[in-house]
């Protein structure tokens, strides 16, 4: 982070812009109307205000394929790159009629035949036809996903930086782990460290929790205080320069015997990493649990890392999707190993993995507890 609000580096922006325009062509889209923060950042290269949670749809950016122009919902030009001129910025409005007027004012909207949105609300589904009178409104998210799924070299650099901040913050919180501390304290320490490291925008705020000894994934009730023998899960996630860096580790508090459970995690992880190969179906990551003799976890086994989440999402609820998805060089994944033992607790470990030409590179290097 700098002392002023800056747009993303030119090389990063240009690489992403080219991918979007190519995939708009491949998906036969004349215009993309994007509401999701990550998509808006991808095409504009300009940082936006972070607020927690999902946002209702609004046209945050408009990409016109014929001219390559990007228009953006930005009421000021701080952090806006010079390839988006001021006349392509439009201000925040609460009024549906003003939305339509704004979109009508963008060159290319009147004649667009196919217009994609990354998601939509019923209200905007009714409004957009007024701005795009001859267009068919279609799902534009597949084009954005196709653009985002493989990372450019500059994106991998950005991911490494984000992961670095996540790992440093994790270490600060783990150093505070001792009987009697609260989950709140550990979470506060981690988020404070991330901000002090230059990143005040968390990817996740589910930071630290005592894993349950009674249930495979349910939360422990009580005072949220760490006790002897507890296995404490930490997930550290930041959004740095728009990119999500994530790492998760579980650390034991003295007084238990978690060695055998960590051993199970190690064996599972070896199989998961082995499944991260170019050309392999993403479903192999689900199979890895089976072959390790572990039940599938309550969270996705893997999801793409990038701006927001990127494809694929590999989860027990999406077996067919995972089987049809092939891993490719340049994909970055957050892969989760999760094992649980009644009376002991859970070991959660999440690593960032980059698919390479001949295998996979581990992007995370935070230490893992060993007996």
């Amino acid at each position: 982070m700098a002392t002023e609000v800056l747009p993303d580096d030119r090389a990063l922006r240009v690489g992403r812009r080219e991918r979007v325009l190519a995939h708009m062509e491949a998906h036969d889209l004349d215009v993309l109307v994007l509401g999701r923060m990550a998509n808006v950042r991808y095409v504009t290269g300009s940082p936006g205000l972070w607020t927690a949670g999902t946002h209702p749809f609004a046209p945050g950016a408009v990409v016109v394929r014929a001219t390559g122009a990007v228009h953006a919902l930005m009421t000021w030009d701080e952090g806006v790159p010079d390839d988006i001129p001021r006349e392509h910025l439009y201000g925040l409005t609460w009024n549906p009629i003003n939305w339509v007027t704004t979109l009508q004012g963008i060159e290319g909207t009147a004649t667009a035949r196919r217009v994609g949105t990354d998601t939509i609300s019923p209200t905007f589904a009714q409004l957009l036809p007024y701005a795009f009178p001859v267009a068919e409104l279609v799902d534009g998210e597949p084009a954005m996903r196709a653009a985002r799924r493989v990372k450019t070299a500059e994106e991998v650099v950005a991911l490494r930086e984000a992961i670095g901040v996540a790992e440093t913050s994790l270490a600060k919180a783990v150093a505070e782990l001792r009987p009697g501390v609260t989950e709140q304290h550990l979470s506060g320490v981690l988020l404070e460290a991330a901000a002090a490291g230059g990143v005040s925008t968390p990817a996740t705020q589910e930071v630290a929790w005592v894993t349950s000894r009674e249930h495979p994934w349910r939360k422990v009730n009580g005072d949220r205080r760490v006790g002897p023998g507890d296995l404490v899960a930490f997930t550290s996630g930041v959004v740095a320069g728009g990119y999500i860096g994530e790492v998760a580790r579980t650390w034991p508090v003295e007084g238990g015997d978690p060695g055998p459970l960590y051993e199970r995690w190690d064996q599972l992880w070896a199989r998961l990493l082995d499944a991260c190969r170019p050309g392999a179906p993403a479903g192999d990551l689900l199979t890895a649990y089976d072959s390790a003799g572990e039940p599938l976890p309550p969270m996705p086994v893997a999801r793409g890392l990038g701006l927001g989440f990127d494809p694929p999402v590999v989860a027990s609820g999406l077996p067919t999707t995972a089987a049809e998805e092939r891993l490719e060089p340049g994909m970055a994944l957050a892969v989760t190993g999760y094992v649980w033992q009644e009376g002991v607790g859970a070991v959660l470990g999440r690593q960032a993995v980059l698919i390479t030409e001949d295998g996979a590179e581990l992007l995370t290097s935070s230490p893992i507890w060993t007996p």
Partner: protein
Amino acid sequence: MTVIDIPAVPDLTRMGRARGAKLRAAMAQQGVDALILLGNTAVSYATGVSWPLGDSGLAHADRPVAVVVADDPSAHLFMPFRAGTSAQEPLPADHLHPPVYLEYDEGVRNFAAVLADLVPAGATVAADELTGAMRRAGKSLFPGGSPSDAALVLAAAKLIKTPDELACIRTALRITEQAMADIAGSLAPGMRQIDLSAGFVRQAYEHGALANVLDPIWQVMPASREAGVWTTHGDLALPLLTTERELAKGDVLWTDVSISYAGYCSDFGRTWIVGQDPAPRQQAQFGKWWEIHSAVKDVLRAGATAADLTRAAIAANGGSKPWLPHFYLAHGMGTDPAEMPFVGTDLGEEFDEQLVLEAGMVLVLEPVVWEDGTGGYRSEEVLVIEEEGWTALTDYTYAPYGD
């Protein structure tokens, strides 16, 4: 005069029941038989389950989804793993479902199969978001035709807060103020904006926040409008993002932070000066702000319209609007940091004339005043509307400008 009796500690079970009843009343009024909710705060409102919200991008990968059926007092929740899920599980076991992935065709197919058992054929459905996969599914997901916008149902239900909701908001505000008091006390030249953010989030968690809701704002105000950041409307920019910029003695900061407690947001805004007291011209800015916000509070009561408030503010400001063109004079607050009612937006005067305020609504008043060379003044005042007036939900100091 009756004043709303806000309990010291919210009763979350009672709150959930009351919210459910209001949601169903709004559904009945708008002719909606079932709601499909994807938005994080909408799900939280409908189910009573709150968790620390994360980045919006990551939130799409596996998000909680709620289904509300008109004649069922409990909502259905399709819940992914959330480490921080409220321990007080408010839903019956047969209303808790495994997660669904509505970004994917396979996920929507699975969801449609369950939905067919929950929602009667021919029901009128409203949804707050339609992913591409949901739109592609068409009739197999929405056999009764395209859904209407559930945001309209939520907005109506959320308008008037129950005493327990007010207790949640007041707790969120107290946590925020405790954290901000620590930051205000440490403010000194040479600190970086980002250091204030780091200290704030740490203190907010230590004092019991569920999550941070807004990347904290510590905007250094320009010497003049002309010297400020270019905007589409020519007025001031707000909020500008936090950086590693070092604060200098005399910098005027417009601060804005928000956290959540039990799913309810706080909103805090004050003007601070780094390392010195306000000069007379700066003090006069606060005086003007005080006049405006007092004029608004003088007309604020159940039965007043939003236009009554904007008129009072404009009159106290000598005829011009004392708020920024891209925002508003006031906004509501609840499970969202800014929600209906909005007062003074570009929805226009007619909208404001028709918006009648009612007892139990929460309003955050945020007029701004500006004179080149002073850094201006902006604070946020959180009020609940009463039959005969209002009650302030905070009593935080206006230091260094006033008490």
